[in-house]
């Protein structure tokens, strides 16, 4: 420690008071960001009655697992839903990145004749769409994708906005000269795309990939639309359903009492379950952030050195 303090100050160093102040500021700021999350976690483990009487607290009087009991009593289904969510997210993201990049790349090339037309087609879908019922009928009546995992992936595979982002990046950040020189060296279009354009575009692919991942992970709507059985639904929709049941039952004593009479062990820890659901829902996705973050940082520095 002492040795470090006596080190000669370099240009990059900042004065000790300033350093302390910045550190303190960010400590507090981080705490403000993290404490609510911790609170969610703690409340999810709190006894329901304690929450009703004393409100949310970081140091509850009584702990209980009843919220998780309620959510996980059907643990096999929960595990399966997790599997579906992960599968849909991973496969969906990879496929959608690939498809979108392959769409965006040609329309980013100035020597592609019909780029105007294809860009227009893409933008058109942002501005106009047919509405919910035709969309629903398309998937259920013509593609027959109800109760299929594909129905949870296909609708989000190509999203016009992301295609535009990718196109912009390809146009601005991949030098035409590179592509031309590769061509002179004898590379075909596929090789150029796979070995030059894609590696150069890792930063944008990572950002779009992260957004796609979140899109897929957080989606419950497609499950609601297309999945009628209780089997092929993803974790978010399972949680959403549990929440809907909860809200209905806690405001409708007739329905609740009828279920309670049939099953006296039925519990309804409504306040804590909400929090437990958030915890279960956040689950694996928090691990995706560090994975993508590497590319964010890398992308930033690559850009910076090039100036």
């Amino acid at each position, binding site marked *: 420690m002492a040795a470090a303090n006596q080190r000669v100050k370099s240009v990059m160093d900042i004065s000790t008071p300033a350093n302390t102040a910045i550190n303190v500021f960010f400590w507090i700021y981080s705490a403000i960001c993290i404490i609510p999350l911790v609170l969610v976690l703690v409340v999810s483990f709190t006894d329901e009655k304690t929450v009703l009487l004393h409100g949310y607290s970081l140091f509850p009087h009584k702990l209980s697992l009843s919220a998780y009991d309620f959510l996980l009593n059907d643990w096999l289904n929960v595990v399966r839903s*997790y599997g579906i969510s992960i599968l849909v997210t991973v496969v969906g993201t990879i496929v959608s990145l690939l498809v979108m990049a392959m769409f965006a790349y040609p329309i980013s090339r100035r020597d592609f004749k019909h780029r105007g037309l294809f860009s227009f087609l893409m933008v058109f879908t942002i501005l106009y769409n047919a509405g919910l019922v035709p969309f629903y009928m398309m998937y259920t*009546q013509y593609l027959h994708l109800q109760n299929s995992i594909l129905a949870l992936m296909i609708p989000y595979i190509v999203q016009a906005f992301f295609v535009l982002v990718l196109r912009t990046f390809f146009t601005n950040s991949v030098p035409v000269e590179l592509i031309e020189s590769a061509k002179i060296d004898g590379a075909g279009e596929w090789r150029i795309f796979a070995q030059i354009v894609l590696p150069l575009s890792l930063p944008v692919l990572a950002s779009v990939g992260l957004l796609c991942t979140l899109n897929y992970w957080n989606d419950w709507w497609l499950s609601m*639309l297309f999945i009628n059985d209780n089997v092929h639904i993803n974790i978010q929709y399972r949680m959403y359903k549990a929440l809907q049941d909860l809200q209905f039952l806690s*405001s409708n004593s*007739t329905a609740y009492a009828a279920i*309670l009479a*049939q099953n006296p*062990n039925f519990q309804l820890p409504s306040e804590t379950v909400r929090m437990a659901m958030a915890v279960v829902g956040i689950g694996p996705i928090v691990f995706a952030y560090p994975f993508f973050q590497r590319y964010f940082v890398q992308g930033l520095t690559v850009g910076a050195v090039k100036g």
Partner: protein
Amino acid sequence: MFRKGSKRVKSSTMLLSVILLTSMGLTACGGNNNNSEGSSSPSSSAKASESASPSPSASDSASPSPSESASPELKPYELKVLWEGPAQKDFPAIEAEINKYLQPKINATVKLSTLDWGVYTDKMPLLIAGRTDMDVVFTAQWNGHANNVAKGGYLALNNPDLPVGNLLEKYGKDITASLDPTFLEGAKIKGFNYGIPTNKELAAQGGVLYRTDIAEELGLTEALNNVKTVADLEPILKTVKEKKGSSIIPLFMKDGETFNTHYMIQHDYLGDATIDGLVRKDGDDPKVISKFEDPDYMAQLDLTRKFFQEGLINKDAATTTLGTQDAMKKGNVFMITSSMKPGKDAEFGNAINMPGKIKQIDLGPRTVSTGETAGAMLAISTTSKDPARAMMFINLLHSDKYLNNLLNFGIEGKHYVKVSDNVIKAGPNAADYNPGVAWELGNQFLNYTFETEAPDKWDQFKKFNEGAHKSPALGFTFDVEPVKSQAAVLINIAKQYQAALETGSIDPKKAQEWYDKEKKNGLADVIAEKQKQLDAFLASK
């Protein structure tokens, strides 16, 4: 740089593929367990599309079936039954048991499925628009019945002009015999029944629920037993306030839980209660008036305001989002408002984990309006390929005690155990089958009662239903379409005042301001339209 990049790509693909494999493994094990269910779904979806491709064909395709079913030989048919509530783990077992019983009777098998609470309202219109294959479907006024009927989702059950004929008359004899005609009369839309109402409580009544342990402790039981009107509650609540101080809220109110809800004020809004223009439910006058023209409403506001100023009502009543059930659960509330029916107190006590500690006081007369008659119904989907069979099934739910209880409570010895002939308690596997939707399916008077309930529950219900006053607008539901824009404005204005005024949080003088605003924003149009439609309805009766 490129090499570095590709290395990263490699390691990341490794990681991704590991995740992928594990997740595939997870779903695969899951899938295997449910192979039977999984394999049945594609075939049903294929059937759905066949029936659906030309959409108006539903009624055509139904036409050959009555001739088939009219003959004594019934072809095997799978009835798809759908209700609102959580899905049940033991559906396959129940289906098997029902099929065993049903096949000799009407040669039908059932396939049970549900739409979860709240999801129903979003999803039903899609199922209808997508012409999904369904037969017997739960529907109710509060989850979009009129809309779904307008979209052509359900068959008219008593229309002799349909190719299938008058289903109710042909196959629903037990229904018409056991169901109070008021139900069918009230649940009509444009002269036809699009759903068979559940045979259950018919009348509506408002009232309050209170904690008996607190009442006994303070010696208020006697006084509470003598309460006849809302005004009688005042001295009681005052005593609670004096003796318990701030530890107990004497009366908990919130938006939608006041002396003006649950028909304590006897207002029939002819549909959406947020749009002004009503008839008195307890009267016989079909004249539509504004609520401000009803002296009872103004008196009620004054009284509530008085309660509030005396500190008898929770201070945050106008804004709180806590439900009355959760509020009572907290243990610091003495009294709440509620809709009433026989045994409501026991039911509520169980729901909030205070069995036997809640008692009810009924306030005001018992009345019937459209909402009560159409509060739970079974409809037949227009996509049904054999509506006659569906009607036979509904008929059995209304008349066959064994089938009704099997569907509602599961298998004896497994999901419930008998205590005596008609009294049951939860069985060892109750957690696997407890739909709790007996009020959605058929005839509640056939239901077993639980140990925790009064054994003569259904007799009490019968008495409750008898002699209830019919609203002059019974059977009528207001179609808001012609005055949609005015109604939207009125609803917005109501949001500004209603919760605050009706919980007593602001001076009742503000009611005049509200009234003036309504008058400026098309109240007259709405009332005139309501009157016009109601008159036309009454004339057509």
